[in-house]
Every structure is written in structure tokens, then in C-alpha cells.
């Protein structure tokens, strides 16, 4: 069987040892093979079995890449088990390869001794050529260091769906369900939820539902037979002990959408969402159109600029304006965001980051828009920035962004990334009643002396009143030109600009007073080394710090949600550590902010391959602080051939 242990650094377990703690499975196939669907359903069954999990979906930027090619491979990795799972796993234990290209691009990542399940039906001369194999790897012994289970899944699938009279092409589409059936057998999973899902999905075409269910059952049945013949083995992973409650799986894009809806409800406002299609942010628009009964209006604008402008217009008219995009779109929105800052209107901007600059890596992940979020506008234009660490965390972060926007009358940037947006994890369904509401009070009456209106009169936190256009007696004009104190009338005078620049900055700085102190999520609150992260690097940093602490290293994990303004205690906290390491999927942007704000010697650990960090990479970086070798701390991590997206897939 496959040697199945998530902790690659623990002692090698005997090959037939009992139950592993966690397993990493990667499904890989052609874009048309339905791997994301297979992965998604396997995720659901895993969650229903009570295992903790994390996933990593990876798919080509092309909508329909040519069949069988290396760059057309779509993959889905899941790490699950009976322990806390915070990453999609470093190296897979099991690889399901639906064609030669999928095998070629992914097998390098497989742990030695891991299991390959390959569909020989697809290992034709033509497909081998497309994958640049001269000889079939199934026959030439090149896969010897792994367990190989190669059989004709295509033929078995065709056989299983024969009674339904499908065409050859349609019948072969059931291959992914056959494979899923086998995977469900391997991990002792209940088939019923998948059967229910298929019946629902194909309710307009019951024959297709029946055929897919038949393929699923056939794959499952095959497991029973194959066990006798080969390396396939049934595995049961104990459910993880989690906090009691109601659970479901959630992706980051879903969690952001729910959080925005919840945030608007907590503010007591209807929400206006202006969006323009862009990968990987579009899912938020797709989700929100289904939530309109919560007072959500969605507007698919003509471009990114119109999307944010319409959202600001809606805020002026008294709704919570929200817009969402990815880096290139956020760049286009920059001028309008500046207007939101200048007119001091609430606005939530979600940036699902992807690799940049320019079009960059549309479907891959990166954290390289931090400078853009914190600094990326003309003029002195501060705005609060909040970053989600995981799909589930994105829910609370979205609520937090709404809270800051309406209580401080300011645009707020919420950073997620392609990984968070697409990945799924189990989520304890929150009780909406447990979140503190932050109801908005619009100005009702004139607020100045002698019955005058002062639209820019600031309260003790420097916040101006929100005046809903349409309110009788409160007519006023706002705009992007510098304004006089209190009245907001046009005023270019030196004193007005200095006063207002200072006031805008002080207001945003003051947000720090309303956010919790920075905590240390693992380890001591002072010591030798703090690993400081933000966003989706949470998982690998957390596991790396956990493992290094278990080995006796004095290392702590600090993960920052509030990127701007930073928590008030963060400076003193960091100064309690001898050394600081900041792993980021960019060239060191947050590191620069920390150095600038606190004059600390933060060392970067940069990764810019469009791949998330592995746990091992961060462990190595931590070790470099303790090995006595001077000047080797931090640095840059190279592209990793064992990880998704596969280097071979991108550059065959």
C-alpha cells in the first residue's frame, strides 16, 4: 500500500501500519475530465465523514485547452485526516492520473512509495505523444519507486454504463464518477450523499443520473475486487475531534459573499454590489446574485471603473456600496477609491489576489497586491486593509470590513487570494445572532449652528456624518476637490489641505483603537524567532511552527489580519523577539511595511512561483535562524516541482 503519513518528517511508518493521521490525494486529468467536480464531491464526502481537510484546486487559464496536452491538465488536491489540517498538504500520497499528461505533470510530486492509479485506456500512442512520452511509463519501469495500479478505467466505465444507451463520448464522461467511486471505497465513504447530489444535478435528465450512479457504484465495487489483486487498500481515518456544532464546507468566495451579506445586515443596510467579471473574483458576484432577498442589488457594470463608481454612488444614496475584483481591476478602480476616501463614503473593496503584474497569472495565487492595497493611490490616500487567512476566516473578515467602512465612513480593502477564493474547508456554521450589530445612523437634522448643515463636521473619532441623498432639508454637494473644514465647500487653501490631509490620516489611524490586540497564535509572546504572516500563508506557517516547536525550537507564529492600520500592540510584540521572519507569496511587501512602521529587522521569505508555500520550505527557513551560519536567514524559495501548479504543466 501507499505509505500514508502527512508528517513527512516523522519516522517512516511500517508499510502495513495501521491508520495514518492524514492523507493527501491528488486527482489529475484533462480539463474536460471533471477533476474539479470529482475533487469537490470527494471533499464533501470527506467532510461528512468528519475528517478535517484542506483543498487546492488548480486549473488551466484556458477555458478549453486542447485535449491530452500538458498545459491542459486540471488537478485537485485534498489533504484530510483525523488531525487539524491547515494546508492542502505538501506531497500527495495518492495520485489519480486520468491520462499520460496528468501523470507526467504530477507524478514527480508523489511521495516515494505513494500510490498511482492510472487509466490505461487513455495511454494511447497519440496521448503519449502529446504528453511527450516516448515509451509508456506504465511499461518501462520508470514508475518503480511508487505503487502502480494501472487499469482501463475508460473501458470499465463504458461497460458499467452500457445499459443506458449513451453515446461513447457521453458514456466516457462518467469516468470521473467511476474514479470517485473507487476513492470512496478506499476511504470507507458513504456513497449516498453523492448519489443524492447526482440525482439533483441531473434531475432534468434522469438517464444521465442513473448512468453516473452506475459508474460510481462500479468504481466502488472494483475496489473490493482489486484489493485481492494488488496494492489498493481500504483506509479508515478517524474523524477529527472538533468543536461541537453544525458544520459545512465553504470556499473563500462563498465565505466572503456570506460575510458581506451578514455585514450589511449588521449595519442595517441594503447592499449594492458593483462588479465586472474577472478571475478569480467573479465567484463573489455569482454568489451574491442568489442572495437578493437580503436586500442585495447586484450590478454587472461595463468595466471595473463603473463597478466601483456605481458602488460609491449607491453609498451616497444610503446603501452599503461593495465592489470586488482582482489586482488588474483594483488598479483601474484606484482613482474612484480615492474619491471614496476624499468624500468619506463607506465602500468595501474585495481583492481576490492573483499573480501579477498586468494580466500575470490569472488562475494562480500570489499575495503581491499588498503595496497596492496600502499605498496604491494618488495623493495621501490612506484606507484600512483587512486580510483573510483562510476560506472560513474570510467570513469574519468580510464582516469586519463592513464594520470599519460604515463606522469610519471610509473605503476598506479586503484582501483574499485565488487560493482562498477557490479552496474549500470545513466551517462551523456561525450563529448570526452572536455578531455584534453596528447599526448605521444617518444624519436626520442640520448639525451646525444657526440651523446650518455641516456635512464634514467630524466627531471625536474624526468621522463625518453619513447623509443619505434624498433626505429633506439636508441638500449638500460633495466632490473630489479639497474641502473646507466642516462645510465641505471647495477650498484649495493651504490650511484646508493640510488640515484635511491630517484628518483623513488620523481617522484611518484611529481604526486601530477599534480592533483587537494582535495575538500570538502559536508559541510564546517573546523569544528567539517570530514568524509573521498574513493571508493564506497561515496554514503552512502554522504547521511549520508547530513542527519546529515540537523539535524544541523557540519559534512563534503571529498572523496579522489588520494590515492597515496595524494593531496598536504589534510593534512592542515584535520587539520582544530577537528575529522576525516574514514568509510571503511576493518579494517581501509586508516585510517592508513592518520595517517601515516599527524599525524592526524583519527578514523576508519570498515565494513568487504562483505556488503556495510548503510546510517544509518554512521549516527550512526557520532552521536557518538557529544553525549558527551567518547571513543565511530568509531569502527566496524556488519553484517547487512537487507542488501544484506543476512546473511541467505550465512549461512542458
Amino acid at each position, binding site marked *: 500500500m501507499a505509505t500514508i503519513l502527512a508528517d513527512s518528517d516523522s519516522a517512516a511508518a511500517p508499510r502495513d501500519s495501521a491508520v495514518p493521521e492524514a492523507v493527501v490525494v491528488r486527482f489529475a486529468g484533462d480539463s474536460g475530465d471533471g477533476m474539479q467536480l470529482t475533487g469537490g464531491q470527494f471533499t*464533501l464526502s470527506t*467532510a461528512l465523514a*468528519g475528517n478535517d481537510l484542506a483543498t487546492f484546486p488548480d486549473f488551466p487559464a484556458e477555458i478549453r485547452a486542447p485535449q491530452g496536452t500538458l498545459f491542459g491538465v486540471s488537478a485537485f488536491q485534498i489533504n484530510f485526516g483525523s488531525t487539524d489540517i491547515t494546508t492542502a498538504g505538501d506531497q500527495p500520497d495518492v495520485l489519480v492520473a486520468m491520462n499520460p499528461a496528468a501523470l507526467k505533470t504530477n507524478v514527480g510530486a508523489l511521495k516515494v512509495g505513494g500510490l498511482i492509479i492510472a487509466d490505461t485506456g487513455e495511454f494511447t500512442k497519440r496521448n503519449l505523444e502529446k504528453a511527450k512520452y516516448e515509451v509508456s511509463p506504465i511499461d518501462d519501469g520508470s514508475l518503480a519507486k511508487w505503487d502502480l495500479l494501472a487499469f482501463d478505467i475508460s473501458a470499465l466505465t463504458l461497460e458499467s454504463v452500457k445499459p443506458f444507451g449513451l453515446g461513447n463520448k457521453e458514456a466516457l464522461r462518467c469516468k470521473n464518477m467511476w474514479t470517485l467511486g473507487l476513492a470512496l471505497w478506499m476511504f470507507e465513504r458513504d456513497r449516498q450523499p453523492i448519489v443524492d*447530489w447526482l440525482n439533483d444535478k441531473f434531475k432534468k435528465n434522469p438517464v444521465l443520473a442513473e448512468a453516473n450512479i452506475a459508474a460510481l457504484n462500479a468504481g466502488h465495487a472494483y475496489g473490493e475486487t482489486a484489493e485481492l489483486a494488488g496494492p489498493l487498500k481500504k483506509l479508515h481515518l478517524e*474523524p477529527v*475531534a*472538533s*468543536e*461541537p*456544532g*453544525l*458544520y*459545512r*464546507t465553504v470556499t473563500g468566495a462563498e465565505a466572503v459573499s456570506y460575510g458581506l*451579506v*451578514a455585514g450589511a445586515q449588521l449595519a442595517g443596510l*441594503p447592499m*449594492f454590489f*458593483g462588479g465586472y467579471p474577472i478571475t478569480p473574483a467573479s465567484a463573489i458576484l455569482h454568489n451574491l446574485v442568489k442572495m*437578493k*432577498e*437580503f*436586500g442585495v*442589488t447586484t*450590478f454587472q*457594470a*461595463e468595466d471595473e*471603473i*463603473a*463597478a466601483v*463608481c*456605481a458602488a*460609491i*454612488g*449607491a453609498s*451616497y*444614496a*444610503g446603501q452599503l*456600496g461593495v465592489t470586488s475584483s482582482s489586482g488588474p481591476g483594483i488598479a483601474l478602480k484606484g*482613482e*474612484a477609491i480615492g*474619491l471614496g476616501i476624499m*468624500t468619506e463614503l463607506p465602500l468595501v473593496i474585495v481583492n481576490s489576489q492573483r499573480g501579477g503584474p498586468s494580466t500575470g497569472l490569472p488562475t494562480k495565487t500570489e499575495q503581491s497586491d499588498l503595496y497596492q492595497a496600502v499605498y496604491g493611490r494618488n495623493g495621501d490616500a490612506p484606507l484600512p486593509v483587512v486580510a483573510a487567512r483562510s476560506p472560513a476566516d474570510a467570513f469574519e473578515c468580510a464582516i469586519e470590513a463592513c464594520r470599519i467602512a460604515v463606522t469610519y465612513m471610509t473605503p476598506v480593502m479586503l484582501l483574499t487570494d485565488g487560493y482562498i477564493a477557490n479552496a474549500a474547508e470545513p466551517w462551523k*456554521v*456561525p*450563529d*448570526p445572532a452572536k455578531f455584534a450589530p453596528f447599526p448605521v445612523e444617518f444624519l436626520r437634522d442640520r448639525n451646525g449652528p444657526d440651523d446650518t448643515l455641516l456635512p464634514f463636521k467630524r466627531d471625536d473619532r474624526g468621522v463625518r456624518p453619513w447623509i443619505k*441623498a*434624498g*433626505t*429633506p*432639508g*439636508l*441638500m*449638500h*454637494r*460633495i*466632490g*473630489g*476637490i479639497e474641502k473646507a473644514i466642516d462645510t465641505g465647500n471647495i477650498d484649495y487653501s493651504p490650511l484646508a489641505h493640510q488640515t484635511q490631509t491630517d484628518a483623513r490620516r488620523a481617522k484611518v489611524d484611529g481604526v486601530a483603537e477599534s480592533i483587537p490586540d494582535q495575538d500570538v497564535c502559536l508559541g510564546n509572546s517573546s523569544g528567539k524567532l517570530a514568524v509573521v504572516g498574513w493571508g493564506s500563508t497561515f496554514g503552512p506557517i502554522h504547521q511549520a511552527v508547530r513542527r519546529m516547536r515540537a523539535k524544541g525550537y523557540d519559534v512563534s507564529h503571529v498572523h496579522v489580519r489588520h494590515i492597515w492600520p496595524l494593531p496598536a500592540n504589534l510593534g512592542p510584540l515584535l520587539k520582544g523577539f530577537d528575529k522576525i521572519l516574514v514568509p510571503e507569496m511576493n518579494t517581501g511587501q509586508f516585510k517592508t511595511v513592518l520595517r517601515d512602521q516599527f524599525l524592526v529587522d524583519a527578514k523576508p521569505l519570498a515565494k513568487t512561483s504562483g505556488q503556495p508555500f510548503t510546510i517544509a520550505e518554512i521549516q527550512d527557513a526557520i532552521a536557518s535562524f538557529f544553525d549558527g551560519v551567518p547571513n543565511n536567514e530568509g531569502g527566496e524559495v524556488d519553484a517547487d516541482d512537487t507542488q501544484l501548479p506543476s512546473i511541467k504543466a505550465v512549461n512542458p
Partner: protein
Amino acid sequence: MNDMSPIAVQTTLKDWETDQEVRWCPGCGDYAILKAVQRTLPEIGADPAKTVFVSGIGCSSRFPYYVESYGFHTIHGRAPAFATGIKLANPELDVWLVTGDGDGMSIGGNHTMHLLRRNLNCQVLLFNNEIYGLTKGQYSPTSRLGTPSPSSPIGSVDRPAQPCAFALGSGARFVARGFDVSKELPNVLKAAHAHKGAAFVEIFQNCIVYNKDVFEDFAAPKGAEASQLWLKHGEPMLFGNQKTGPIRGIALNRDHLHLEVVDVPDGDWQAAGVIVHDVKNRAIAHMLVEMPFGEFPMALGVLYDDPRPTFEEELLGQDAKANAGKAPDLHKLLAKGQTWTVTEGGPDL
């Protein structure tokens, strides 16, 4: 127009003036347009609290500061997008969009097009002075061929855009034209306001500093009757003055499908083949906005007016229909899809 506006409110011109000093150049055509708007608003029973003026950037876009209503001076070219958000958030607001030839045709051309094709219920006033005024005189997208300017010292070579043709091509359901000092301008504005949907009004405006008197050929009082064709629904397209010259009219050449100017002897326009203006005739509207001035008079007034459902009615109506009978339940929303329960003793499978 604003069907949903409550009861007409009694105001006077004074009620629509703000305490802000107007900062256009002395003699600028914008003064006359401002007065025409401030005169129109009381006549249509507009409520200052329900009225919003939205503008982009440019001389014309200072307009909202001078009207005692809600006003939003936004960023260059994007006023249509802000207006869309405002109107969708509160359809009761009566939205007026003020833009210029640079703001609305150049940097904001895209948004103008989409606002018109969506048919957001608002009035779009495009002040066309055929020049960039605020940035000190560069040629604009509507400048005539050969316009000398700081950025085209020996004359511009760009062919000018035609705002009304652009509007029609974008799917506008109301297209009208006027000019700053015209006595007819309030009537044009009233018609625009009465139209339910996006009402596009091109207003020729004299830039006294950078493009002085560029419209004098037809806007000067002297000879106006011979150079202006004021269109009225149901009336023949006649122009000229019997005392000073011939009465002429616009006829349709049916063999070659173009308009032509014909003489109308003895007032018998029917015999001369002069056509009757029909505001719902889109094909003729296309021809009217394209008539080259000189050979033809300048077509003014309501050129086209054929309403259809507005964007906010369609969008919000669809939402309301989809939401009917649905009770928003946040807890239910969050617990959507397949769920499982974990109890004290571990997962409950």
C-alpha cells in the same frame, strides 16, 4: 422624468441657487445653461431634496455646486456610473447628469454609451463647447477638423465625434439639442425631464476663452430663422422667415434615402414634399443628427423621443419578482448545502 416623484413641490428660481460663488469665466455659456436649468426646475415641480446633480470633471462639471439640491462632483468621465448606483439605490431620486464633450465623449464615452443603452431614467446634459476648457484649450473629440490649439498648433486632424449620433447609435430613446442662450432651452429640458428613461440633451455652449463664437453661424440671433430648424412633433420641418428670405423645408429624397432642403413657395409645404416631424421615427432621427450644417440648418429641439422600460424598473422589478415570498433568513443561508453535526462525543455520522 420622475414618475415616482411624490407631489410636485412649489419652488422658485431662488430656491435652486446655492451660496457658492459661481466660478466660470465671465461670458461663459454655462451661466445661461445654469439659469435655464434653475428656471426649469420650479416649472416641473422638482423637489430639491429628491433631486441629484451628478457630474464628472471639466468646466461643465462644476455645475452641481451651484444648484441647491443634492450634488456629486465625481471623477473624469465616470458620472454615468455614479448616477447608475444612485438611481439603483434609490429610484425615487431625480437624477441629472451634467457632462461635457471631453468628459462624456472622450474619457467617459464608454459609460455614456452603457447608460444610454441600459436606459437609466435620468437626464444627461452634455455641454458641447468643442474644446477642453479647464485644461486650457486643447482640441476635444468634438472639435472641428483643423482646430488649432495648444496640442494641435497647426490644426487638429481627428475627425469630430457627433454626440447625438453617438447617443442614437448607443440606443438612446430620447435625443434633443439646444444651445446655451436659446430661449427654447427650458422647453427642451422640460421635454427631457418628461421622458421616462435616459434623456440625452446636447447643449452647444460657447467657450468665451478658448473657442469663442464657434456656434455663431447658427446661434447668432441675426439670421437664426434661416439657420435653425426647431423640430416639433407633428409639424412640418420648416425654417426661414418670409420677411428676410425664403421659407424652406426638409424633404426626404426617397430614391436615394437622404434628406434635402427644398424651397417652399407660397407656404405649400405639402406640395414641396416637406416631411412632418415624428419623434418616434428613429430612421429620420438618424438623418437629422447627421445633417451637415451649412448645406442644412442646425436641427434643434426634440429629435427623437420613444420611451421604453427603464433599466432600474427592469432590474429592480426582476429582483422584486424573484424575491417575492422569500423570507431572508441568515442562519438558513449560512447552513446551506450539505451539513453535518459534531456532538460532544465526536461527529454524529
